[in-house]
C-alpha cells in the first residue's frame, strides 16, 4: 500500500515516533511483562506524556486532537512489537473514553475526559457479563432509580483495565422486560486496584474521583495472551450512582455501545494487523539467517510460498483497516467495513503467527524468540469485541438487510 493513499506527512511523523518508542521502550520489556503478567505502568506514563492515550480527542478535553487514521497507526505500530501495549491504548481510548466523548453531557466530558485523555487514570468499558457475552443484550446487571440516584447490582466479566482502572462506563438494565431498549449506561468510579504500581510512577490514581461504595474489581484473569494487559471482573453491590452519572438517556445504552463497538472493531483490526506484521518481520529476519542444508532456509521454495502468502494477506489487511478508518474519519457509513477489517485481520494475525512460528522451527516454540508470545496474543483478537462468528453475523445482516427485513 502506498503511504500516500491514506497518510499525510503528519501521519508519517506520528508513525515514525511511535515506531521509535515501540522499538526502544516497548520491545525490550515485552517478554518480561508477558512472563510476569505485569501491567506496564512506566510505559503507560510515557505514552500519556506523548499524547498516545487520547489520540483522537479534542485538545480542549486534554486529547492530542489528531484523526482516527493517526489513532490506528498508533495501535498498529505498538502491536507490531507488543499487542498488550496496543490493546492498552485501544481499550482505554475506544472502550473507556469514547462513550463519554460521544454520548456524555458537556459536564461529564469536562469532568472525566481530561483525566483519561492525559493518561492520569485508566478507563474501561463494562459490557460483558457471565451470562451476556456475544449476546450483550442479555445484560443482567440492574440499575434501580431511587430519588436522585441509581442503585446498581451485578457483575461484569473480562473487563480490560478492570483492576488498574478508575473510570468505567457500565451497562445495566433500567427497564426490565423491554429487551435491549431497557439498557442504559452509567459512569462509575473506584480507586485503582494497583495503588503501589500507580504510586511508583505517579499516575493511575486521581483522589478527586469518588470511591463508589460497593464497586470493586474482582478476580484478575490469568490469560493465554495479552498478559501485560489488565483483565478483571467488576463487581457492583448496591452501588449508589448519582443520576448525573447516567450516560445519555435511559434506554439508549444498547444502541450507544453498538456504536462504540463499531468503531472499536477498526482498532482491533489495526491491533491484529500489527501483530501479523510483527510476526511476518520476525519470519523474514529469521529465514534469511537460519541455515539448513547448507543455505539460508529463505532460499527454499517452500519457504517462499509461506512468506509470499503472508505478505499478500497483510497487504490486503492494511487496505481493509485503513479504508475502514478513512470511511469513519470522513463521516461515511463504516460498520460493515469495520467488521470486515476486524474479522479478516484477527484471523490473519492467527494464521500469520502460526506460519511464522513454524518457520522458526523448534526455536520459535521457545521464549528465546518473541513469536510464541505473538501467537498467544493473536488468539484473543478473534474473540474480544465480538467473536469472528459475531462479525460474520454483523456482516451478513448488513448484506441481507434489504432482502430479508
Amino acid at each position, binding site marked *: 500500500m502506498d503511504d500516500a493513499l491514506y497518510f499525510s*506527512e*503528519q501521519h508519517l*511523523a*506520528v508513525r*515514525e*515516533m511511535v515506531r*521509535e*518508542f515501540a522499538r526502544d521502550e516497548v520491545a525490550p520489556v515485552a517478554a518480561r511483562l508477558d512472563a510476569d503478567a505485569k501491567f506496564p505502568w512506566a510505559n503507560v506514563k510515557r505514552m500519556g*506524556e*506523548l*499524547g*498516545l492515550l487520547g*489520540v483522537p480527542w479534542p*485538545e480542549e478535553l486534554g486529547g*492530542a*486532537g*489528531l484523526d482516527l487514521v*493517526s489513532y490506528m497507526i498508533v495501535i498498529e505500530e505498538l502491536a507490531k512489537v507488543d499487542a498488550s501495549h496496543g490493546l492498552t491504548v485501544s481499550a482505554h481510548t475506544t472502550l473507556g473514553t469514547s462513550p463519554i466523548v460521544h454520548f456524555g453531557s458537556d459536564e461529564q466530558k469536562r469532568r472525566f475526559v481530561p483525566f483519561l485523555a492525559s493518561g492520569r487514570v485508566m478507563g474501561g468499558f463494562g459490557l460483558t457479563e457471565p451470562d451476556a457475552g456475544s449476546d450483550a443484550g442479555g445484560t443482567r446487571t440492574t440499575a434501580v432509580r431511587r430519588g436522585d440516584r441509581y442503585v446498581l447490582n451485578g457483575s461484569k466479566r473480562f473487563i480490560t483495565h478492570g483492576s488498574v482502572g478508575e473510570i468505567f462506563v457500565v451497562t445495566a438494565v433500567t427497564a426490565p422486560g423491554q429487551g435491549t431498549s431497557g439498557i442504559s449506561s452509567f459512569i462509575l468510579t473506584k480507586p485503582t486496584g494497583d495503588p503501589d504500581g500507580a504510586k511508583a510512577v505517579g499516575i493511575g490514581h486521581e483522589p478527586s474521583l469518588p470511591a463508589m461504595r460497593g464497586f470493586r474489581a474482582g478476580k484478575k484473569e490469568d490469560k493465554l495472551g495479552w498478559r501485560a494487559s489488565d483483565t478483571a471482573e467488576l463487581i457492583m453491590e448496591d452501588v449508589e450512582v448519582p443520576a448525573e452519572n447516567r450516560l445519555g438517556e435511559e434506554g439508549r445504552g444498547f444502541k450507544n455501545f453498538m456504536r462504540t463497538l463499531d468503531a472499536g472493531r477498526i482498532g482491533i483490526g489495526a491491533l491484529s494487523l500489527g501483530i501479523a506484521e510483527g510476526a511476518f518481520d520476525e519470519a523474514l529476519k529469521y529465514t534469511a539467517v537460519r541455515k539448513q542444508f547448507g543455505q539460508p532456509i529463505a532460499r527454499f521454495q517452500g519457504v517462499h510460498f509461506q512468506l509470499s502468502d503472508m505478505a499478500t494477506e497483510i497487504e490486503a489487511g492494511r487496505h481493509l483497516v485503513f479504508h475502514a478508518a478513512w470511511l469513519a474519519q470522513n463521516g461515511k457509513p463504516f460498520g460493515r467495513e469495520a467488521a470486515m477489517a476486524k474479522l479478516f485481520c484477527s484471523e490473519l494475525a492467527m494464521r500469520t503467527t502460526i506460519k511464522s512460528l513454524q518457520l522458526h522451527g523448534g526455536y520459535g516454540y521457545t521464549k528465546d524468540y518473541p513469536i510464541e508470545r505473538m501467537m498467544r496474543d493473536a488468539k484473543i483478537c478473534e474473540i474480544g469485541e465480538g467473536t469472528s462468528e459475531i462479525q460474520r453475523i454483523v456482516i451478513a445482516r448488513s448484506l441481507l438487510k434489504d432482502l430479508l427485513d
Partner: protein
Amino acid sequence: MKIAVCIKRVPDMESRFKIAASGTAIDETGLKYDISDFDAYAVEVALQINEKAGAGETTVICLGPDAVQETIRKALSMGAEKGVQLRADAVPADSLAIARALAAELKDGGYELILFGKHALDTMTGGAGTMAAELLGLPCLTAASRLEVTGARATARRELEGAAELLEFPLPAVVTIDEGIARPRYPSLKGIMAAKKKPLDVKPAQLGSVRVSVEKMELPAERPPGRIVGTGPDAVPELVRLLQTEAKVL
C-alpha cells in the same frame, strides 16, 4: 537564550549499504534517514537549557536537499522553535565548504550558543563545528559530555582516556556534543502538530569553492570467518599465541 543547533540528516546506520553506480557515494534507494545521533543529543541539550531558563529560542539549521526538511521538522516537533534549510543539491565532502555556509547563516543570527554533534554518524569528519567556530571567531569546545550555562559563561566536561576535564568559557561559543549528555526526547503528538506551523526558512547554501571530493567509495572487505582453536583450558596457550602473533591485540 538564543541557541542554534546544526543538524545533519544521515542514513540509518543499521542499513545494508550499497555503493551507487557513480562509485563515489552510497546508493540512497530504500534507505531510511534520521537526525544524526550526536546532533539529536545537541537538540535535546538546547531544549533543556531553554526549558530550565524558562525562556529562549532554539533554531535548527540543516544543509542539504529538500529532503532535509523532514529532519528539520522532526527537531521542530521535539520542541525547537525555528528551522532553516541551507539548500544544496548534495552535502559536499569538503567540511570547510559546509562550515562556510553554516557560518554565513550563523554570523548575524545573534546566537549565544551554537551546538553541533561531535561528528556526523555517516561521514565522521567532525570538521564542520570546529571550522565554523574558527570562521566565526568564537571559542570552541569539542565533544562535551556535560554542558551548563550560567549567565554569559558556560562550563563543560570532556571525557578523556581515564580522566575527565572541566572547562570554562565565555559565550557566545561553539560546542560540539558527545554521547551520554542527554537522551533525546520523542516528539509528542502535540509537538508533531505544532511543528507544522513553525517557521522553516529555505535559503541557498553559500558553500563557496568546494575543494575536496570523494574519489572512490568501497565497502569494507568481508570479515574472514571465525576459527575455533580448541576447547577448554588446553586451548588457552594456542589462543594467546594467535592473539599475539596473528591478531596482534595482546
